[in-house]
């Protein structure tokens, strides 16, 4: 009897166990919910599925991560100097950071965007904006190096940048601050009506990617916050959010938040091209730097440009229209079809979605509610695509998946909200940790977004990681968006401020990645292509050392005849022609940095010895089994000494 009771009890508990398990499954949206670790685990030796190019914000750089693992592969120096890679320190890259204000060692890098062909990511280049001293940089995805930087005249706070059109016809950059154009000495209080905001259209030569500032549209003195290109049917248009349409010049947090509506500026750039062709542009004097790095000479050159073509929308009908959008909109995002333009009014509780086809219809019927500085303002009700009601607080940025859904970040309520295009209903919301800014879906700014992952980038992390004093890391969070509900998979720290990102399927990019530079094509002015070509040449106080590096020695490695007061140029060529064999070069007392020289490349470090003595140099990249032996000496004699120049290896 007792046994019977026991076994009944056991059976009962088994039924309860399985029963509850079944219930649990339904509730937690499938067993998979607990398998987040498995979804982001990329086994040792295996490769990630996506590249994520995450801007470093105030670090000024661009970080390359793998998704879904969140592993950091490289930090590409762009706008800030980097002594590790000698970026801005060696003679070859100093011109890259030249501007009309001289050499600038830092900037604030914000919005990377990947080049496109026919509305889809082609993975050739990443463009990114420097916010502080307005510039656009181009990163070549065969070398993952910054190869071009162009400065923008008439701009200040280059924020609504750097977004590309469907065929990378243009990289577009809008100014955040309006300023006097041309700059002049005047009272700040005379801002209203006198300052201008420039929208810059930089063409990209299709084959080599060479950038050129084709024209600027001089807009009213609002602040231009973010932008996105039209695509598909809206190709040929570009949309910019504005705030401070009040044109306040002080205490903007109050004074620029007074208007119930600001605008999204819809710019017809095909029309702009027509006006340019018809000679309606005005050439105005300017002064801006155009810096280009040549892969064969391994050297950058900086050219100052003296003129820019400007278009005045108040005189050129059909060029710009204003779409009224509630409350200081931030994000300005166009869905994959090109029909919907989402304006994230960051002080509004609702998301406003404009319809492109309705906009065109309203323009055709000339249904305007008025004009601002002679630019027609359309009526909200005529262009309304839909409203996502009470979605959250502080909407910032929206991207799209491949299934007709949109995902918007809300800064104040710290969450990502998923909603449906066309029905405008909210389907899911997930908290972020904390205060999410932008988000990224690979291909999110294209006709073909991927529907797999979403990366949310957070400004604040507080208790999410081990504390590191007052400054703690910012973070990115990876969500699985393949199902109906979003699922948080991973939370990883980032460099600087992960302001914005662009993602792309790895197989588009990885096959083009260069393994080394061909030594045969090295056209550096001071290259030594073999040890036989190494030498030391004195020209007055300048001494040029044509040096080579190969496992595991420098040639020459003993140099005499250098004097205090000389300017010594170490031109080091890495003779290796093998994958992943860089050599470093470091010398005691260098006031700049090390060199990190890729196979087949030549880099130059300037060294100005101030003390008599025998000074060593060595390889700073662990290159081989005898890396520690890869070293040499320079003899520095007094300024008045008559020691002759001599150099040797193995004597």
């Amino acid at each position: 009897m007792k046994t019977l009771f026991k076994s009944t009890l056991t059976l009962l508990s088994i039924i309860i166990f399985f029963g509850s398990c079944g219930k649990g499954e339904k509730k937690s949206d499938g067993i998979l919910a607990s398998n987040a670790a498995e979804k982001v685990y990329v086994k040792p030796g295996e490769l990630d599925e996506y590249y994520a190019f995450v801007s470093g914000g105030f670090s000024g750089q661009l970080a390359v991560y793998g998704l879904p693992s969140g592993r950091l592969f490289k930090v590409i120096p762009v706008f800030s100097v980097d002594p590790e890679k000698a970026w801005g320190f060696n003679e070859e890259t100093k011109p890259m950071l030249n501007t009309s204000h001289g050499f600038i060692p830092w900037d604030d890098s914000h919005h990377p965007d990947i080049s496109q062909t026919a509305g889809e990511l082609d993975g050739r280049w990443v463009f990114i904006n420097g916010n502080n001293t307005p510039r656009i940089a181009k990163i070549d995805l065969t070398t993952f190096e910054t190869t071009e930087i162009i400065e923008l005249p008439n701009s200040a706070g280059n924020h609504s940048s750097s977004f590309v059109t469907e065929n990378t016809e243009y990289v577009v950059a809008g100014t955040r601050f309006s300023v006097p154009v041309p700059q002049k000495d005047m009272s700040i209080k005379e801002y209203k009506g006198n300052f201008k905001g420039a929208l810059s259209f930089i063409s990209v030569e299709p084959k080599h990617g060479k950038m050129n500032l084709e024209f600027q549209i001089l807009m009213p003195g609002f602040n231009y916050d973010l932008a996105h290109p039209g695509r598909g049917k809206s190709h040929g248009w570009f949309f910019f959010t504005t705030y401070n349409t009040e044109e306040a010049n002080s205490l903007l947090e109050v004074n620029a938040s007074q208007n119930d509506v600001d605008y999204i500026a819809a710019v017809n750039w095909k029309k702009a091209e027509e006006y340019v062709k018809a000679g309606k542009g005005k050439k105005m004097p300017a002064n801006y730097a155009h810096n280009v790095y040549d892969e064969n000479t391994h050297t950058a050159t900086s050219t100052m440009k003296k003129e820019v073509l400007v278009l005045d929308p108040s005189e050129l009908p059909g060029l710009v229209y204003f779409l009224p959008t509630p409350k200081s909109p931030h994000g300005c995002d166009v869905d994959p079809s090109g029909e919907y333009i989402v304006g994230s009014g960051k002080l509004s509780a609702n998301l406003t979605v404009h319809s492109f086809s309705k906009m065109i219809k309203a323009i055709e019927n000339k249904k305007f509610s008025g004009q601002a500085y002679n630019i027609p303002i359309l009526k909200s009700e005529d262009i309304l695509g839909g409203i996502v009601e009470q979605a959250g607080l502080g909407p910032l940025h929206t991207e799209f998946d491949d299934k007709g859904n949109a995902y918007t970040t809300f800064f104040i309520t710290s969450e990502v909200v998923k909603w449906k295009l066309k029905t405008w209903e909210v389907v899911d919301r997930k908290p972020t940790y904390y205060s999410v800014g932008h988000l990224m879906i690979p291909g999110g700014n294209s006709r073909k977004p991927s529907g797999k992952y979403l990366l949310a980038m957070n400004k604040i992390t507080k208790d999410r990681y081990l504390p590191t004093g007052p400054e703690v890391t910012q973070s990115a969070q990876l969500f699985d968006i393949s199902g109906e509900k979003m699922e948080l998979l991973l939370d990883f720290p980032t460099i600087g401020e992960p302001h914005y990102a662009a993602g792309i399927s790895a197989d588009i990019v990885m096959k083009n990645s260069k393994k080394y530079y061909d030594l045969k094509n090295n056209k550096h002015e001071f290259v030594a292509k073999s040890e036989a070509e190494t030498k030391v040449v004195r020209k007055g106080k300048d001494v040029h050392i044509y040096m080579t590096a190969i496992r595991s020695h420098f040639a020459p490695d003993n140099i005499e005849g250098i004097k205090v007061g000389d300017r010594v140029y170490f031109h080091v060529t890495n003779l290796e022609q093998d994958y992943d064999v860089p050599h470093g070069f470091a010398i005691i007392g260098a006031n700049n940095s090390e060199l990190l020289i890729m196979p087949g490349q030549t880099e130059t470090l300037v060294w100005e010895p101030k003390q008599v003595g025998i000074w060593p140099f060595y390889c700073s990249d662990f290159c081989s089994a005898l890396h520690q032996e890869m070293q040499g000496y320079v003899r520095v004699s007094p300024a008045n000494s008559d020691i002759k120049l001599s150099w040797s290896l193995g004597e």
Partner: protein
Amino acid sequence: MKRSKIIMIIGALMMLLLFVFPLYNITLEAPQYPEPLGMDIWINKVTDHNPNDIKNINLMNHYIGMRDVPIKIKEFEIFPIVIIIMASLGVLIGLIGRRKLYLTWGIVMIILGIVGMYDFYLWLYDYGHNLNPHAAIKIPGQGYMPPLFGAKSILNFNAISLPMTGAYFMIIGIILSFIAFFQAKKEAKKVYH
């Protein structure tokens, strides 16, 4: 023309493919070389299997005192001449059409092949044993000779030597000369019937 003659001539002409395809390949595998290093040995030259492979093999080998891969050797002058002579003789023999000469040509080619392999062995032996006494890494009793055929582990590398397309064509050419011999025999019988 008789079928045997055609076969003989084709067999002889196959020798000329040694100028189009490499004979032999030596590949060096190591964990840090996910794409292994390799050199292709031709009748008249040694080449990189992938760009810069020989340069990188030399770089590795200088630590253990090996010389650079000898790419200029007198064999590369003699072998092509021998092959051209043999191919011409083969064609000539084919045209003459004497079946015993077919057999002789085939046997001479086999002997030449064996001599060639022996020479290759000496080349490998010298390359693997003639070491710089000032080498950075010296391991007493360690030789670095790659295998003549098949795989062999040498320090951190796995060296693999295998024939390539050219060698296979050479073997087929020799076999064809024997087939031509038997075919000619058959054809002779038919005539007597």
